[in-house]
């Protein structure tokens, strides 16, 4: 299948007064046309930074050190600002976590959606633009859209604002929509509505979606493939069903074990991952998960494991214990691991 986005060995560092923070340390991933890719990770795992650097929205301190970001064959890391502006919001759109601060409080929402259309197509007449704005607000199921488009953001609830953000994002029919925790600030009931909407819109328009979240439940409901990030690296990648049925990386296993299911046996204790995520201003030398890993070996603390490929390329996992030359004794993955090959 054709790839919309290809990220290759991306390294991003923030140069701050307190020292350098290598937030992304060699990420490889792709997004296929029309698929919904889930990206999970805790705060500081580098999941947001990876996708902010796709649109080069890192701010003054962040810098893409090395790596390539291919979008439909063009490298975004080398693109000129003028060209990049056409991609931003036009071909690749983004929806952020906080719909309160992403909208201009001084402009009616209809104008803000219209501005998006104007910015990317100056030839569109005012009448056509207004008609399209109305169509977009209806598409994201805003009730009484013709009345609401003259309303200001403060007159909208959180869920409605996020719908406006989605309408803006989809205004130019992008090839890729990056949704960075779009429902984290919303209630479950509103989150449910937004997720349903995204699913329906994706089916209608065939837009590729990258859904960044820390909520495995949301991923399970929405995505077909998942990338698990930790400490600025991809730890595991798998089709959705396989990730939940047989997680390969100890971090993924720990993450899945630490969330109670709605049918959890209450007498049993939860199994949290001990310790806390690494301090990225001083990233560990080896695997970033080694200090918290129940299966840690000496090599894990010395060198980062290579990303091994499983299931004919559909899965990958960066863990030494899955390596074909990992010792058999005391290795919980031995046997299971033999499918691993170096890419």
């Amino acid at each position, binding site marked *: 299948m054709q790839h919309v986005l290809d990220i290759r060995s991306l390294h991003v560092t923030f140069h701050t007064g307190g020292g350098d923070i290598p937030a992304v340390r060699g990420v490889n991933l792709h997004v296929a046309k029309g698929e919904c890719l889930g990206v999970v990770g805790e705060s500081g795992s580098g999941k947001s930074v990876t996708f902010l650097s796709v649109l080069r929205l890192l701010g003054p301190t962040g810098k893409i050190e090395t790596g390539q970001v291919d979008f439909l064959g063009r490298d975004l890391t080398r693109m000129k600002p003028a060209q990049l502006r056409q991609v931003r919001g036009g071909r690749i759109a983004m929806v952020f976590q906080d719909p309160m601060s992403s909208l201009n409080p001084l402009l009616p929402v209809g104008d803000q959606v219209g501005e998006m259309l104007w910015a990317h197509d100056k030839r569109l007449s005012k009448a056509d633009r207004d008609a399209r704005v109305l169509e977009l607000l209806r598409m994201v199921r805003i009730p009484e859209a013709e009345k609401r488009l003259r309303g200001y953001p403060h007159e909208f609830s959180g869920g409605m604002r996020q719908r406006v953000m989605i309408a803006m994002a989809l205004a130019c029919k992008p090839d890729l929509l990056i949704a960075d925790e779009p429902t984290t600030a919303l209630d*479950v009931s509103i989150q449910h509505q937004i997720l349903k909407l995204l699913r329906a819109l994706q089916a209608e328009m065939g837009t590729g979606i990258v859904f960044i979240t820390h909520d495995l439940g949301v991923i399970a409901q929405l995505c077909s493939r998942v990338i698990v990030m930790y400490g600025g690296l991809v730890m595991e990648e798998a089709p959705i069903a396989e990730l939940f049925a047989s997680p390969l990386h100890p971090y993924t296993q720990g993450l899945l074990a630490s969330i109670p299911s709605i049918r959890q046996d209450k007498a049993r204790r939860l199994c949290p*991952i001990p310790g806390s995520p690494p301090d990225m201003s001083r990233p560990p030398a080896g695997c970033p998960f080694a200090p918290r890993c129940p299966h840690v070996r000496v090599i894990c603390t010395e060198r980062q494991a290579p990303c091994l490929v499983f299931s004919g390329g559909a899965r990958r996992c960066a863990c030494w214990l899955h390596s074909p030359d990992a010792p058999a004794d005391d290795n919980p993955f031995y046997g299971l691991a033999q499918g691993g090959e170096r890419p």
Partner: protein
Amino acid sequence: MSETPLLQIENLTQHFPVRGRGHKVVHAVDGVSFAIGRGRTLGLVGESGCGKSTCARSIIRIYEPTSGHVRLDGQDITRLSQKQLLPLRRKMQMIFQDPYASLNGRMTVRALIGEPLRAHGAAESRRDEEDRILRMLEKVGLTREHAGRYPHEFSGGQRQRVGIARALILRPELVICDEPISALDVSIQAQIVNMLRDFQQELGLSYLFIAHDLSMVRYISDEVGVMYMGQLVEHSPAEDIYAHPLHPYTQGLLASIPVPDPSLARLQDEEGLSGDLPSPIDPPPGCRFHTRCPHATGCCREEAPALRNVGGGHAVACHLV
């Protein structure tokens, strides 16, 4: 019931005046009643703005309740002066949601954990105070080396441990946990929940546990109350409310939870809740949920349903049940 429950609230109402709008008020909490027994946990769930946090704050009188009664250990504390209330505050403590905002960044962890002891004159000597602080630190999984550090040197999970140490150092009987885990990373949430459960077993604490993560609430609670627009709409033993939700709002809320299991029913099959919360300044007449309820009838638009018992400790406020 033979034994008096530790906390009993009756018809608790909390209205906030709206500035510049005549005599209009926000109906944050409207006639909520429940009780929590010793060593028990009541989980309170609902959408943001439903009044669950306000309810907690009115109980410990961060807000002065508009009307209703709060009884701690049988004693009505609603109208006590702050001075009379002070000795009772030792019995009830609170853990807050945001471990970044709830700790004073200029105080060391030692001073933060020792503050409640000083406020209540609970330590016999400096030596006793120091001993108790260090013991508490170890109990919440920190070490004595942490005592001299400042909050910014800690991660979110560690800060929440400091918040818990502050709440527990006076050996309270009731702890109100207002979204204690929602600001934490997934892998850390389970650490904190396990710790809260251990403390409950060891010290016989009662919890009022407020959260919007319904799976976590089910796991930690004995009973669950569901709030909607300032009112309790359903209240039952925890297992029961998840297995047989009776109120259409509870049903919608449960259907909205994303289940971390890709093999289970996916989004499109689930009903969920439609629409948004109406304004709490002019709540809808009759049942407050009727504007979003898929089963609403004429009766629901006119008459407010009372919370009534339907057997097995399960109570629901709906005309149709």
